[in-house]
């Protein structure tokens, strides 16, 4: 589990500035690294605070969807993760799927393999420690 920030994507930020509209502050959220997730998911409460519309859909299968994949909304966001050594990990435009139950499990973001693909993840069983580098 780590702390991350979710903001509007770079393209949306530029459009908001061009329209002289305020850019929502990035939202702080707890994120769980999940190598069992092929895509990154964000709780709708975080997306609602950013006031962003969906710009896509994708198909998702999870233990709660049964055997048939379900169509879910996709949002374009930016994400950054402060590290022990600056600069932070930052992606200016990334697609995330909207998923509930994250908040009730103690986090708002499920960091999936689409984002972990930019990182090195090391799990030390004896030390009970996960290290993420980028």
């Amino acid at each position, binding site marked *: 589990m780590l702390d991350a920030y979710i903001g509007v*994507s770079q393209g949306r930020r530029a459009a908001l500035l061009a329209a002289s509209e305020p850019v929502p502050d990035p939202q702080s959220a707890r994120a769980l690294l999940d190598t069992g997730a092929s895509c990154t*998911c964000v709780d709708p409460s975080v997306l609602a605070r950013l006031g962003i519309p969906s710009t896509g859909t994708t198909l998702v299968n999870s233990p*709660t969807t049964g055997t048939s994949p379900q169509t879910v909304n996709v949002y*374009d966001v930016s994400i950054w993760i402060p590290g022990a050594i600056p600069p932070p990990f930052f992606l200016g435009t990334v697609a995330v799927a909207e*998923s509930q139950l994250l908040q009730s499990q103690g986090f708002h973001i499920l960091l999936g393999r689409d984002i972990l693909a930019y990182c090195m993840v090391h799990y030390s069983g004896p030390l009970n420690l996960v290290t993420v580098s980028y």
Partner: protein
Amino acid sequence: MALEKELETYRLKLPELRAEEGKFVLIHDQEVVGTYTSYEDAIKAGYAKYGVSSPFLVKQIQANEQVHFISRFVDPCLTLLSR
């Protein structure tokens, strides 16, 4: 439902778009605006052309849409298409 028209346009245009499979298509209403090599480029083009008040769809062109798998118990927020 948001993006209903755009998703229908994608479905109708998919046979033509298959020649560019893997790229990202930008659709507004019933118009295929363009295709892009990256998701980021398509999103930026959408906001540059339509701003923040007009909906647009960005979707990777796939003859057989990829299904994402999540092993954890989460409840994907379904669109009306799934209900």
